[in-house]
């Protein structure tokens, strides 16, 4: 039997050594696997880890990819900290994008960028409404939010599919399931850098991340609301003793996380796609769950975790494009990376004891 015994004190050295060891083991096992599968191991590692950083426009692509992950992850952090298990961010992302898209397409000639404030707000509302369903079912009828939020993902996927094939299909799309392009006022532009021009796909949406991270840090650490979430997650009875209302906290965190996922959806579509299509998310809502936990449910941690995951995802794309390594193989590598990162973190806090005792 294996038991995990909490360490009395986490040594400072291990906080630095553990991640280095994790990366080392990841690389070691990565090399092993790629060699056995017949790929050039060093070249593969280069593609996954180094090539995303090899040009400045690629670095900016990491930020673009990390942007929705960080926004959704921050919302999920609030849920997970209060022991509310929203795993339907993918659906909330889609519904946010859809509602914002509906508004955008209703004003085909609008040009002012102030209109973005309205579409982003619409995205928040769309995502929040989708999360309100599990919230109200959980608080009123004690229905498990994990099941409801997850199942609503598939409802949302089919719903957007129906919308872009039916009501919102562009008549000029030659039968493709696409909406009309968004008006100018609903598009998020790339950031022009003087003298350089655009850096890859880097767009103004990234500003939202730079705003969100400090605001969420202050909310979690310096406000009563953040404290309530923390207490409810660690000791629900104590939250009751402090007079915090469980139901209203549960509803609030679900609305906030749904809303943020919706905003991520608007930013993704407005900046990178420019119209509605059946597939607007690339598993951002699910990947963000990993991002939230890898970032130890802290705003700054999530910022870095988002960047790490985005890097590996882009690296996997590169490996596929240049070397023809299938996604499943790089997916396996991602798994190894996560395994060792989380193991390293766990072993910082716990020591393992093997005992012969049978149970």
């Amino acid at each position, binding site marked *: 039997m294996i038991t995990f015994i*909490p360490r009395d004190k986490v040594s400072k050295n291990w906080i630095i050594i553990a991640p280095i060891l994790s990366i080392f083991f990841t690389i070691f096992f990565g090399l092993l696997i790629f060699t056995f599968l017949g790929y050039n191991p060093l070249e593969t590692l280069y593609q996954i880890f180094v090539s995303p950083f090899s040009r400045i426009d690629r670095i900016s692509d990491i930020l673009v990819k990390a942007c929705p992950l960080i926004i959704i992850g921050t919302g999920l952090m609030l849920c997970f900290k209060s022991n509310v298990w929203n795993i339907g961010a993918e659906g909330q992302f889609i519904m946010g994008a859809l509602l914002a898209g509906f508004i955008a397409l209703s004003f085909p000639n609008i040009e002012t960028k102030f209109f973005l404030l309205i579409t982003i707000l619409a995205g928040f509302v769309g995502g929040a409404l989708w999360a309100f369903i599990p919230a109200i079912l959980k608080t009123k009828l004690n229905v498990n939010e994990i099941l409801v939020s997850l199942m609503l993902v598939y409802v949302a996927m089919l719903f957007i599919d129906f919308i872009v094939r039916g009501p919102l299909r562009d008549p000029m799309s030659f039968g493709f399931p696409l909406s009309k392009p968004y008006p100018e006022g609903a598009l998020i532009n790339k950031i022009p850098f003087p003298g350089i021009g655009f850096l890859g796909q880097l767009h103004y949406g990234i500003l939202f991340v730079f705003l969100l991270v400090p605001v969420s840090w202050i909310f979690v650490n310096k*406000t*009563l609301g953040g404290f309530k979430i923390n207490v409810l997650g*660690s*000791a629900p009875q104590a939250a*009751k003793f402090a*007079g915090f209302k469980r139901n209203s906290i549960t509803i609030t965190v679900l609305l906030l996380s749904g809303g943020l996922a919706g905003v991520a959806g608007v930013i993704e579509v407005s900046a990178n796609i420019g119209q509605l299509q059946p597939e607007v998310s690339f598993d951002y809502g699910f990947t963000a769950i990993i991002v939230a936990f890898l970032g130890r449910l802290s705003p700054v941690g999530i910022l870095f975790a988002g960047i790490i995951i985005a890097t590996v995802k882009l690296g996997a794309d590169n490996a596929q494009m240049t070397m023809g390594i299938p996604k499943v193989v790089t997916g396996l590598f991602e798994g190894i990376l996560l395994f060792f990162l989380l193991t390293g973190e766990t072993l910082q806090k716990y020591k393992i004891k093997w005992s012969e005792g049978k149970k």
Partner: protein
Amino acid sequence: MPKKELNILLKARKICKSFGNFVANQNIDISIAKGQIHALLGENGAGKSTLVKIFYGVLQPDSGSIEINNQKISITSPNIARKNGIGMVFQHFSLFPALTVAENILIALDNKIKFSEVVNKITKLSKEWELFIDPLKLVSELSVGEKQRVEIIRCLMQNPNLLIMDEPTSVLTPQEIKNLFKILKRLASSGCSILYISHKLEEIIELADKVTILKSGKSIETIDAKKTTTNFLAEKMVGKKITQLKKNIKTNSKNIAFEVKNLNKQKDHEFGISLTNINLQVNYGEILGVAGIAGNGQVELMEILSGEINCKNNDQILLDKLPIGKANINERRKLGIETIPEERTFHATVPNLTLSENTFLTYFFKYSNTKSWITNLLNNPQNSLDESKTIVKNNDVRCPETNPLASQLSGGNLQKFILGRSLANNPKVAIFSQPTWGVDIGAATAIRQKLLDLSQSGKAVILISQDLEEIFELSDKICVINEGFLSEIFDVREITATDVGLLMGGKNRENQKMDPIK
């Protein structure tokens, strides 16, 4: 070759056991004679439970040896313990409520026998040992004392040479305790040794032949229980003289501080207790003790009194004759009602938060009464740092560092902090549930003194406790809770421990009146 000792059943030498850095048992020697009642005395955390769990094979010692009948054995599982004639009754029963007595005993047997045989055997054993029990009754219908009998019979089915009882009386009424002692004495005289774990001194003197005193994981001394006094045992157990409580003569006012009227509350889950027609009142300058065995509705009563759950009608609870039944817990705090729930961690405090954060937990509203919206927005635990330091200083809370996590404090120190936190709010009415439960004697005395001081300074105190001695020591008035019914309130001078014991066992619940005591 050590000499053979024929009358020794179990002999343990130099038993050591640590959990991480915490040393639970350190070089403990103990030998239990055949047919003797051997008591293991010690405060909470002295290492009693660890030691007996080693004897029963639940835990493995780090080092040391155990001999049974002069044969060295290693008890690697409860199965092996039972094969060697060791039976154990745990503090918390391990019975399935939805099964009958006989079914519960059947599934626990190592060698399978027929159901009808089990029933016969139970009937025989229960007659033989006066452990009266109906084998076909559902366990959920049994009282706590009866459940304990089932556990004892379960052990007796295996014909044990040694019966380990872990704090068996903590859940029993005085009458049930008397019965249990009779049975244990008979068992011992028939040749079965008993290892009896307790921190109650009187019990040990009444029951045991030998007593081994444990303190901080070490065995201090083994003495003849028949030739000692409670004072001597207490000093050995605590390691210092125990200060007596100072009880001044008080002037009880006749002003009613806090009143509960005709309160009913349906249980909200299967294992809860419904509160039925609760009436109580407490005057300023008075301590009202609510006695009762744990699990008889104290938790539910506390939820309603604290305001964690509101009453249906506002006038079911009155403070200074004003209705407050619908006020929530923080509104009641502002009105001067402070409550302490029975669970110290996860209810009264959050273990992974610091003391200042735990102070903020019940005081956050104090820092948000300013007019500046930015202060309100950024109301965070930093605000309660000074307050928590004052609480720590004024209440002699011993911390390993400044502002530690609540989980870093020992039970007694944490309870002193919790009590201090409530008192810092300068309450008019204090309602405390099991304030000294599981706390070492030193801290318990300090806490009891604080309660006395509180009432002597004119505050109203309600003390919910399962410790009868504590109830009688502190209270001016006493009532008893049993299965969600509250007895009428008696003056402490008009009621005896026997009366209270009968009420705790559910006597006269229907007419709520005392019969003349036989």
